């Protein structure tokens, strides 16, 4: 089956400065793709290219098998886009605005009322239809922005930093909404908040200085790092004693009675816990190391920036 989005060798120059360099990737249906990168890495530029708002200097984008550059109008019909700043007409009411968006996205007249109701329901805007967009809070404006992107039930939704500037409750709600959307749509999400990617994405792309430096499914990432375990005990220990534990390859001290254990692939952390209790080490903490993505991100986006 044709991937939902397929890009090949995207380049984009701004007055001689290369903002995006040779970016190629694919997105399958029902997948959530997380775009990560420090500020200025080319995330927004890439997303603007994918949404058709900006023409690439070179390369190809195919949306659902249709070339975005050759047949832009057809390709854009299967696309919903929320830019960094939601494109809202502040002097319209929510209903007026969403109705205009539905017409703009060629929702047939007979389905417009239903599409409006559904988009408002999904984004929690049922009670706000007659309010002026300019008078809504930032969180609600962001919801209207998302409603605008999904009103025509596009196959692909592109969200550029959708939780930017929201409070923690709103962020949780927006993430819930994104998870709900994944049941029916493919989603590309850009952010620089790492836990957000871990919370909602299936696949991660890391951009740095315009280049795609990392592309991996999140579940593979978890597997890679399942083998690291943090342990803290009440009684002082020698690393050698930890080395005796079943399945432990190496133990490195972190100070304050904490150690990082590198395990064999088939090791069972449960056995280690039992062993520690038996020995009377007074186990305080035993947890898998959670910082896989963060480590990768830091390594890829700081060391290479000097080049």
């Amino acid at each position, binding site marked *: 089956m044709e991937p939902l989005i397929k890009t090949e060798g995207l380049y984009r120059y701004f007055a001689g400065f290369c903002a995006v360099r040779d970016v190629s990737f694919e997105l399958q249906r029902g997948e959530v793709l997380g775009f990560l990168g420090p500020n200025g890495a080319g995330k927004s530029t890439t997303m*603007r290219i994918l949404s058709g708002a900006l023409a690439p200097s070179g390369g190809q984008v195919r949306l659902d098998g249709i070339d975005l550059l050759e047949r832009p109008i057809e390709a854009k019909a299967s696309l919903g886009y929320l830019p960094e700043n939601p494109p809202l007409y502040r002097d319209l009411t929510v209903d007026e605005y969403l109705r205009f968006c539905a017409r703009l996205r060629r929702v047939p007249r007979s389905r417009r009322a239903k599409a409006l109701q559904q988009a408002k329901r999904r984004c929690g805007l049922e009670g706000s239809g007659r309010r002026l967009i300019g008078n809504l809070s930032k969180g609600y404006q962001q919801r209207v922005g998302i409603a605008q992107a999904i009103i025509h039930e596009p196959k692909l939704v592109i969200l550029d930093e959708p939780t930017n500037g929201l409070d923690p409750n709103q962020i949780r709600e927006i993430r819930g909404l994104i998870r709900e959307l994944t049941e029916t749509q493919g989603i590309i999400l850009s952010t620089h908040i790492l836990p957000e990617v871990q919370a909602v994405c299936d696949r991660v792309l890391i951009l740095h200085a315009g280049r795609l430096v990392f592309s991996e499914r999140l579940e593979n990432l978890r597997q890679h790092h399942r083998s690291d375990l943090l342990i803290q005990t009440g009684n002082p220990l020698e690393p050698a004693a930890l080395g005796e534990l079943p399945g432990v390859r190496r133990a490195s001290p972190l100070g304050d009675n904490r150690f990082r254990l590198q395990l064999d692939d088939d090791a069972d952390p449960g056995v280690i816990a039992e062993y520690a209790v038996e020995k009377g080490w007074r186990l305080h903490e035993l947890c898998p190391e959670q910082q896989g993505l963060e480590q990768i991100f830091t390594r890829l986006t700081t060391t290479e920036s000097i080049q």
Partner: protein
Amino acid sequence: MIASIAGNELRRLFLSPLAWSLLAVMQLLLGWLFLVQIETFLELQPRLAALENPPGITELVAMPLFDSAAVILMLLVPLLSMGLFSREFLNGTFSLLLTSPVSMTSLVVGKYLALLATLAIMLLLVALMPLSLLLGGSLDLGTLSAGLLGLALTLAAYGAVGLFLSSLSRQPAIAAIGSYGVLLLLWIINLAGSGRGSALFGQLAISSHFHRLLSGLVVSSDLFYFALLIVTCLILTIRRLDTLRSDG
């Protein structure tokens, strides 16, 4: 699609107080001028009766009114057109239009039609004043309609220039100032000398074509001039937006 874009534009034009206040100011100024023209006509009337082939009320009231309307609206139309694109750039709403399945042509034509609809309301308000004279007198309807056609085409040309200038800048004020510059230049460009080149300047000026229509003469070359000016501006706008997409 064009209708949706035009409808949305028109709605937003009239949701803001801008269009309403422009209409009010226009009506106040032109109403005053209309009354002044009538008074002058009434003073002149006894002397006109002595003439063999006296100019009528159409020539002495309606046409000067249309002439002043063209100048006053040159100052008002850019204020109406300045936001058409520049405000979309400024608010970031342009990306909504850009990522929708809409061609640049329907976008530009839709916006222009919304502007034309507003200008048509202005034209109607202007036309109603001389037409009200039908209650107590008679008008030369042929000359009057030629004059109205001239005013309509002039307004449409102002709008097209304003639309193009609006696509050039993110700042509405700069779009308005630019439109003033271009329109005033096109209005006075025929003042240049009387040498060999001045015939060309006469052809370029909006005012020379407009004044011929005001005198009751409908010449196809004048109609062609306005059509050419409008279509050129629209095509330039479409080209400009396409470049914007490729240049960022």
